[in-house]
């Protein structure tokens, strides 16, 4: 096997999957948001919700398209670049991927067509059902892919045959491996937060320029999400961290840059971990708190990296810093949520605080950065294994040459560079144009008849009073 092909394949996988995860982490949340908006519109009949729906569905369409095409790449890349992994792992996680296609991808793809193009073809109820099915599809997809990833992080329910291939012995233990619940919750909450931050930033940006009732509503919905989901995410993240301590102690040691195994581990706020030195070149630490945070008590002994053979240690510097970026942003999200909730509760409203609006704009991309940082912690922290403790990454790669992989990596860099910049530009342009209540593209589903005897049966259909 070719060493350079290994490095290049890892780079290519890291690049294509990091690019891909941006879109699901946004569209999982956005699909649910759209379902809520459409539901609220059907329930309250306030046009503001429809205006918001028709605005965000355009952004959803662009993001979803980019997610689809970058996702197809992944389903083939496992074979082109990681064929040895495929051959070993398919008997166990193959069905998980197959179920993802059967339960999620077709559902999303088919009802997306109805959601985007069906306004005048189906009634409001069926359209709402389509939006909801797309939202459910995104969650089912997350379920299977996190299930497969959780199994790779902490494989259970399988046995190794004499020829080295794997066999599932309990599908329940494969699908619901012990770390799955925390990981799944962590990812879904991350997706909801990411979407809320984008919705909040877009609405705040509009409100900085003009006072717009629909953007006020969207901003309040986003603040509600920050205020509830961001603290919840801290708790779920901590539970997930406790699982890492239990099943992947080397990863935890890398996250915290612990080198010596000891009780009363210090907590490193900043550090410069160096694998050659087997220690930190520099650290800014709080004594004893490291054990408290990771294991729940100051006296708890926590393993350091020096307890693991050098060939079994994950890269430390990347994992340590990616974790701090993720947690740092998470703390900022909690603060933003608290600030917004306080403004809603105690003042005339968050739209009147320009500093808050600017802060919300600045935090717009924070969810994406935190998601990618989090996945770096999970995936780089799992190294040098692809299936933790079972298959080393060096043994997972395809018998392909470095030449082919460098060509494809270069092509991905160019194509994704163009697609990402243009897609991003179009989304930002739509956000800058903002939701328009007069719907230039005029898609208007028929209003259902009011029930007979309804008190206002003869009253004209009111446009939302709040709208100008």
């Amino acid at each position, binding site marked *: 096997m070719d060493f350079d092909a290994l490095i290049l394949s890892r780079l290519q996988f890291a690049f294509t999957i990091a690019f891909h995860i941006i879109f699901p982490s946004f569209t999982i949340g956005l699909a649910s948001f759209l379902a809520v908006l459409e539901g609220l519109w059907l329930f309250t009949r306030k046009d503001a919700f429809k205006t918001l729906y*028709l605005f965000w*569905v355009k952004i959803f*369409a662009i993001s979803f*398209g980019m997610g*689809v*095409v*970058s*996702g*197809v*790449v992944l*389903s*083939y890349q*496992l*074979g*082109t670049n990681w*064929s*040895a992994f*495929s*051959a070993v792992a*398919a*008997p*166990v996680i*193959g*069905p998980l*991927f*197959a*179920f*993802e*296609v*059967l*339960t999620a*991808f*077709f559902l*999303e*793809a*088919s*009802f*997306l*067509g109805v959601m*985007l*193009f069906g306004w005048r*073809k189906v009634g409001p109820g069926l359209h709402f059902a389509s939006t909801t099915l797309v939202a459910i599809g995104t969650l089912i997809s997350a379920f299977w892919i996190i299930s497969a990833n959780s199994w790779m992080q902490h494989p259970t329910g399988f046995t190794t045959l004499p020829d080295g291939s794997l*066999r*599932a012995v309990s*599908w329940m233990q494969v699908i619901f491996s012990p770390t799955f619940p925390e990981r799944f919750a962590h990812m879904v909450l991350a997706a909801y937060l990411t979407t809320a931050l984008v919705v909040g930033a877009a609405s705040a940006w509009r409100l900085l320029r003009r006072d717009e009732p629909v953007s006020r509503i969207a901003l309040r919905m986003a603040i509600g999400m920050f205020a509830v989901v961001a603290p919840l995410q801290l708790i779920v993240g901590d539970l997930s961290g406790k699982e890492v301590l239990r099943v992947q102690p080397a990863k935890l040691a890398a996250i915290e840059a612990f080198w010596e195994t000891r009780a009363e581990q210090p907590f490193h706020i900043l550090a410069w971990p160096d694998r050659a030195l087997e220690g930190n070149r520099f650290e800014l630490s709080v004594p004893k708190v490291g054990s408290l945070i990771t294991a729940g008590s100051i006296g708890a002994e926590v393993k350091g990296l020096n307890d693991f053979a050098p060939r079994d240690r994950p890269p430390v510097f990347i994992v340590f810093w990616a974790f701090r970026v993720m947690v740092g942003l998470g703390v900022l999200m909690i603060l933003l949520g608290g600030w917004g909730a306080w403004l809603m509760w105690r003042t005339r409203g968050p739209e009147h605080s320009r500093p808050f609006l600017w802060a919300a704009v600045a935090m717009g991309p924070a969810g994406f950065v935190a998601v990618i940082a989090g996945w770096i912690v999970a995936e780089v922290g799992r190294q040098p294994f692809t299936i933790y403790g079972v298959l080393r990454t060096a043994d997972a790669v*395809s*018998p*392909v040459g470095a*030449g*082919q992989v460098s060509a*494809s990596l270069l*092509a*991905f860099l160019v194509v*994704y560079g163009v697609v990402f910049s*243009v*897609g991003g530009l*179009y989304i930002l342009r*739509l956000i800058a144009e903002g939701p328009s209540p007069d719907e230039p*593209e005029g*898609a208007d589903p028929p209003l259902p008849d009011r029930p007979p005897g309804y008190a206002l049966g003869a009253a004209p259909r009111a446009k939302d009073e709040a709208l100008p």
Partner: protein
Amino acid sequence: MTLDLPLIWAGVIAVAVLMYVLLDGFDLGVGMLFPFATPKERDVMMDSVAPVWDGNETWLVLGGGGLFAAFPLAYATLMPALYIPILLMLMGLILRGVAFEFRLRGRRRGKAFWTAAFAGGSLIATVAQGLVLGGFIQGVAVRDGEFVGGPLDWLTPYSLLVAIGLIAGYVLLGAAWLVWRTEGELQTKSHRWTALAAAATAFLLGAASLATLFVHGRIAERWGFNYINADGLSLQVERLAPLLPIPLLGLLGLALVATGLRRRRDARPFVGAFMVFLSGYLGLAVGFFPHIVPYDLTFRQAANADNALGLMLVGVALLLPVILGYTVWVYWLFRGKVSADAGYH
């Protein structure tokens, strides 16, 4: 009774790939016809496939994901062997896939760029799929369950012929789709495109079929021809005869295309094009079956563990009818002629 799981799964994958070829085939074909249409016609052409292209492409994910899950050894040898065309196909699909939305959002220059990307991406993806198919049919070098050939093994005159044939075939599907789903000037143009593409497909499919007989002695033998052992060519009629319905199906398809065009039965050329594809597909399958990595691994050797196949079969048995049900419903929902204002949002 025990189920022959590998055989059932070979069937499931074969159906998924066929569905992909038929369904994404027509929307790739529509993309390749872009350069020959006016800007306004292009919008209508795109609107005709926009609600369904994503579902169409999902069959490709089922084909690839299904191969991974059901025949991991085939997946693990074919993908590295066909590395370059597979990656090329993915790049093409990316460019054309994002073009659906990007074209709507682009201003003048952007729209022109994504129009070109839709056409170019469709062409790249089609050529790459042809190269994959050609490379697959001519066989992949495998030893001890691992690909051992070179990075350009797939690039031969034969695979190029197959790629050109696939362009003609997808254009036929796309043009016939437009005959069915559009009206006026564009439909008249589509009539001409369908006729030309049908002629090109007939010629290239015939040429590729003949060439396939010479790619591997096994294939010729299946069809009753023998040019290896005997001196000169010999033909066993009793082998060829039961297979004759396959080429006849293709001829019937071409006849339907021709009569449909002449008698203005708008849906008929599309049905005919489907039959042409089915004929080509079955014809090729006869040649390499039961191999799933020609000509080293059979589908039985490459099959996944029985418990994995069994679990997935439960999923397929329950879900595939539902998937087909809502796919048909979506197509039915967007039935009829596409009008110029069919856009959304």
